[in-house]
């Protein structure tokens, strides 16, 4: 028997409406009990949690682990280690690997690599279409059987509305969501940042907010038509928030995520042609950032996802036009959320745990997001007031591409427990 008793922490578990000082006993990889003055069984490891927050492990529905294909940027093992260092006990890996994760063997490979790594749990997301090419439906059933929890063509938006309709209808059979990267490609073609005053000054081709919003509107309409569950990835504009709000008022099965960079940064960050500020969707305007924050408060946006996208140093050390999109995010997500959303008074800590764990488990229907007795012992311990400075050189990811190097954050992961094993300690 292995047992850990986390004693005297502030236990925040929105799934049970629990927020108060308590002890949490974990035995053999499961939550045994949550309560006051729990006794420790013989041989249990007792950890003093006073002053700390104990919460269900964080869940990230959108990461890129580059394996197979680009193991020099990230592997399932290094990504899963970066995840637990960021407080994540479960992550969902996008299928834009090489070859694409579009069949049961590819899904099974990621499941096996994650088991070997034995850090964060990694749930594969299968491709919607073969090779993410947008023309032939992948075998959802086989992929789900092998462990896939959702389907997505990831960075390749599903351009064909017919294909998106088909995917939403077919996915209903398996009860999985279809995650879409919303981008109307004829409007965004050639764009490298948000279209606005900064792109005009820098002379860079812009991507208008409309490129995202048109596809958000289409996906909502198709969700209504099909009754399928659409999950809208990395929402970045105030217009998208407005569309989702209306869809939810109608009771449609629409869920949405936002990234830490979209609630923290704006397109001004591209000044000086900093390629670490190049992402897709691009950093938008202050009013968009504010809309995203409010949507996280009121639940219009259900979850925070990182879109963790490792890239090589050389690839970002280029002309802005030629640099790849995306940043790593697993190890800064919680710190940014606490700094930008909780310490500013916008979200309470339980609301943040809802957005980073409870809701994520619910909308992708994966284990976790709760500390109920009998559930998996996936736990994060947070010091919400500890300040630290982001140092990319200390990242557990294989890549270093982050615009947050040198940023001072308030709130940090102290310990991460997966299946009852302490896998990370600050």
């Amino acid at each position: 028997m292995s047992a850990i008793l986390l004693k005297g922490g502030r236990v925040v578990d929105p799934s049970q409406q629990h927020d108060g000082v308590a002890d949490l006993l974990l035995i053999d990889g499961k939550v045994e009990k949550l309560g006051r003055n729990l006794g420790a069984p013989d041989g249990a490891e007792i950890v003093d949690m006073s002053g700390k927050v104990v919460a269900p492990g964080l869940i990230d529905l959108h990461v890129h682990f580059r394996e197979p294909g680009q193991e020099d940027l990230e592997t399932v093992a290094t990504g899963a280690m970066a995840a637990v260092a960021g407080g994540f006990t479960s992550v969902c890996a996008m299928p834009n690997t090489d070859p694409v994760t579009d069949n049961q063997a590819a899904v099974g490979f990621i499941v096996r690599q994650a088991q070997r790594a034995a850090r964060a749990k990694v749930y594969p997301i299968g491709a919607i279409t073969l090779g993410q090419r947008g023309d032939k439906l992948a075998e959802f059933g086989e992929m789900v059987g092998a462990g896939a929890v959702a389907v997505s063509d990831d960075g390749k938006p599903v351009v064909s509305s017919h294909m998106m309709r088909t995917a939403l209808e077919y996915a209903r059979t398996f009860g999985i969501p279809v995650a879409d990267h919303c981008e109307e490609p004829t409007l965004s073609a050639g764009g490298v940042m948000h279209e606005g005053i900064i792109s005009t000054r820098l002379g860079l081709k812009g991507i208008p907010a409309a490129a995202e919003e048109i596809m958000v509107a289409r996906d909502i309409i198709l969700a209504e038509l099909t009754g399928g569950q659409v999950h809208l990835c990395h929402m970045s504009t105030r217009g998208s928030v407005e569309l989702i709000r209306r869809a939810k008022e109608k009771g449609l099965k629409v869920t949405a995520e936002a990234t830490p960079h979209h609630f923290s940064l704006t397109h001004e960050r591209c000044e000086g042609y900093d390629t670490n500020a190049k992402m897709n969707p691009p950093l938008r305007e202050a009013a968009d950032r504010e809309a995203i924050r409010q949507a996280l408060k009121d639940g219009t946006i259900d979850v925070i996802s990182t879109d963790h996208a490792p890239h090589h140093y050389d690839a970002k050390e280029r002309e802005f036009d030629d640099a790849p999109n995306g940043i790593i995010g697993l190890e800064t997500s919680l710190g940014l959320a606490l700094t930008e959303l909780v310490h500013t008074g916008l979200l309470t800590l339980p609301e943040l745990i809802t957005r980073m764990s409870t809701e994520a488990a619910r909308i992708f229907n994966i284990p976790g997001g709760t500390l109920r007795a009998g559930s998996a012992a996936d736990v994060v311990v947070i010091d919400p007031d500890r300040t630290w400075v982001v140092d990319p050189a200390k990242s557990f990811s294989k890549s270093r591409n982050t615009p947050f190097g040198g940023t001072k954050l308030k709130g940090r992961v102290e310990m991460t427990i997966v299946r009852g094993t302490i896998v990370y300690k600050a």
Partner: protein
Amino acid sequence: MAPRPRTVDQPAMEDRPSGKVVAPLGKDLVGLEYLSPDQLRMILDTAEPFKEVSERQIKKVPALRGKTIVNLFFEASTRTRISFEFAEKRLSADTVNVASSGSSVSKGETLVDTARNLEAMRIDMVVIRHGSSGSAKFLGDRIRSNVINAGDGKHEHPTQGLLDMLTLRDKFGRIKGLKVAICGDVLHSRVARSNIWGLTKLGAEVAVCGPATLMPRDIESLGVTIIPRIEDAIQWADALNILRLQLERMTSGFIPSLREYNRVFGVTRDRLDKAPKDLVIMHPGPMNRGVEIDSDVADGEHSVILPQVTNGVAVRMAVLYLLAGGSPDWAEGGER
């Protein structure tokens, strides 16, 4: 684990010699956005005595003797490259021209590697023309040599902006209060951006005129007015700066045809005849006669298109001289 390459937080210039003289313009000329009105005036004033050098029998001064300058042109250019080369040679610098085709660039070498290799041969300055916005700043941030932007993507073409300003100052005796309309494809134009920054900083009023499909988003926030119709711009302006319409704008669907562009937005004799005063006509070249500008306008008595080219050499001499650490006092003759 092997040590990782350091990320961008490692300055590539940490071994820069500490005794280097900081020129009055700073290390690089990336764009006019980053210069103060005083710096702009200093360049224009310094250009005045250099104009005279090109009029001499022996067109050479020793100001940059012993300096090595690389002209690194990743995009085709005739006028700008030759103008820079004349400016460099008339200042007695040693120059090397590198074009992207036939060099290591065409073998896939990155911009920063190309520049570092050139710098390893101990050069003093790089003049760069590149298709990507921000490439001049990117280079300037990574090498010790002075970097001069000879046009980066759709961002800036600062020496073109300066020569346009010098030409206007020659013609009107001032820039403050002048009304300048920049006409045409502002969206894709680095010339437009440099003109807007330079002219507004020195107190001119600037308007942009052209099809809405070729106007950048939120361009008004740079302090310019949008005048949608060319007839109205002609009524308003003291001078027109007519941008080249890249022919590929038609194939990519920004405008339906060149014929219609000329009919709706072309600067024609008929339209100019309706103006309340004679307008000074500028064009950065190369011109599409019969598209954005009619031949009788380009060749007319109020055209300063060739004086622009002449001034280009003087302005580039001034920029090279000042970046190399030359004193602006040399320009005592240019005070206005």
